[in-house]
């Protein structure tokens, strides 16, 4: 008799803790991401959202608990190992190869997943797959005309778009975006939402977002992180109805934002 194979969650966090010195920042987070869902992580500033992303992506290591990527334990893995296993992330503070061109940035993002490794005996221009992938992403993020511009010289919105581009260039199945629209104007943010939706088709996405329009526009499910704990997970509508969330945000911009969104005001 064979057990029917159960698809493991794309990402599973089990009782994850993180302390800096004596300060506990993440205090027992349990979270399952279903394969293919778009999940928003919301919560006040300092709640530990970026820290949680750092734990998942290997930038930091959890003090306790386990993190699994499609059933494989990644709690102690290095960022590069986790990336090679199919998880990619963007950063809240733009984190690019600032002296390289837009195209070079994207190609660097695509190289490893095309099996190139540390090759030093082949010209990078002859790697058809990696170059094609970089151009494909270049077009998707709408920077085709800025192809040869050095990343450090882009406008803020362009850098944010490139930040997403470098993240998705490797074609990872699980994508973490940390405040992709922060600091953008309304129209820029709308463009970013369309971009995120387009490039994450068929992928599992978790994003940190303050803008409720963006959250409700993208997310299938929402989790609320407050003081290092997930106090609620559910559909955007269910979250709105959750009283504890209301308490946590009573009087804050975020709560007003949720209200505004759901009442259509």
């Amino acid at each position, binding site marked *: 008799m064979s057990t029917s194979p159960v698809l493991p969650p794309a990402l599973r966090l089990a009782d994850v803790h993180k302390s800096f010195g004596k300060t506990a920042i993440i205090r027992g987070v349990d979270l399952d991401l279903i394969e293919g869902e778009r999940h928003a992580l919301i919560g006040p500033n300092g709640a530990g959202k970026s820290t949680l992303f750092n734990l998942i992506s290997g930038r930091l290591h959890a003090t306790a608990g386990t993190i699994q990527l499609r059933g494989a334990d990644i709690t102690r893995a290095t960022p590069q190992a986790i990336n090679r296993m199919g998880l990619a992330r963007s950063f809240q503070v733009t*984190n690019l*190869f600032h002296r390289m061109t837009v195209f070079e940035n994207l190609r660097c993002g695509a190289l*490893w997943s095309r099996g190139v490794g540390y090759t*030093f005996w082949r*010209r990078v221009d002859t790697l058809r797959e990696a170059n094609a992938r970089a151009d494909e992403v270049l077009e998707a993020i709408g920077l085709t005309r800025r192809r040869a511009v050095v990343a450090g010289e882009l406008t803020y919105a362009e850098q944010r778009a490139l930040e997403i581009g470098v993240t998705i260039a490797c074609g990872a199945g699980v994508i973490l975006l940390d405040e992709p629209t922060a600091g953008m104007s309304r129209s820029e943010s709308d463009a970013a939402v369309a971009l995120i939706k387009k490039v994450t088709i068929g992928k599992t996405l978790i994003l940190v977002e303050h803008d409720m329009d963006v959250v409700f526009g993208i997310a299938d499910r929402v989790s609320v992180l407050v003081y290092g704990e997930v106090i609620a997970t559910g559909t955007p509508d269910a979250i709105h109805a959750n009283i504890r969330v209301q308490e946590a945000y009573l009087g804050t911009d975020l709560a007003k934002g949720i209200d505004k969104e759901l009442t259509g005001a």
Partner: protein
Amino acid sequence: MKPGTSLIAAALALICLLALPYVFTQGFALSLLCQMGIATIFALSYNMLLGQTGLLSFGHAVYFGLGAFCAMHVLRWAGGTGIGGAWAVVLLPLIGGLGGLLAGLILGVVTTRRAGTIFAMISLGVGEMVASIAPMFPALFGGEAGLSANRVFGAPLFGITFGPQRQVYFLIVAWALVAAWGMRALTRTPLGRMANAVRDNPERAQFVGYNPQMVRLLMLALSGFFAGIAGGLSAINYEIVTGETLGANTSALVLLMAFIGGVGQFYGPIIGAVLVTFLQTALSQYTHAWLFYFGLFFLFMVLNAPGGIASLIQLHRDPWRQGLLRWIWPQYALAALPVALTLAGLIGVVELIYRIAGGVEAGETSWKLFGQAIDATRWQPWALALLLLAAGGAWLEKTWSGVAWQWQMVLLATARGNDR
């Protein structure tokens, strides 16, 4: 540049390289040319670390020196047995390269764990360590006298024995071309590009799947390979290698070459290597204060053109392509005379001070300039030099603001032209 023009430029450059030893036939000039060729490879290899991977090394002489010692041992062995003859000499730099590669792989495991200041400090420590270990093993490093050998032995190759310096020059040119081509090609490989990425942002490199430490290690090892080739050529050229080759002086010199030439462009270190070698060798023939001038020049470059000479060339490139440089030349011409006067005054003061302070042989305070006897103990030369320096400097300051203003105009026009 069209492929046709660059091909012609390359052909011309090659012809120049081949013609040089027939133009400069004196032994002094020829050995200077050889030194420049070796320094070019060495400085380019250094820039694989500094310019391409963002690693500031204070111990690059280790790979040059260990390569040189490896080559020297093989040269001595081949000379003793007569194996290979001139063929052995042709391939010897490769032995040096392999020595440098191996040293890079071994030492790199320790040094490339971290970047930035920590890498710089560790490279300094490792460099000093290797240099101080050398005297303890006279069998390997020849003690104070170093190791020497004769590069002429066995069968010649098509009549080439590598006895005459000119033949060695051609060997150096050939290896320099191959090595430069190899290093240039390396910048265009996945590893070369990821080295740039690790230089810019090692953390992000991790999140696109690369281990920055591995990238640094491979770049260091390959850089050690090319430094070792330069070392092997130096073993052939001088027929002697001493422990000093491994030391901090050599490491500092290659840093200066790369920095003065410019680490931001591939060709920068070539300019730096040629210029610094020239200054070091030629200037020291004319003045005892050459090291002081050299330091002054370095200071000037660091303060005014931190991107090195290559950055100045890059600055002129776009305006030149758009034909805008004709607005600058007249300004430069106007500034030429004040520059010359200021320099003359400065040199005068420096030389007088050196004479007075006994920098030259004791008691020798007068010397001849343009057939005119100058005595540093009298006041007239001092007055003249100080006057030149002060007046020239003041004049220069005025004309230079004109140059700067004109440059702003040209850069604005260039930017507009680029947008079009």
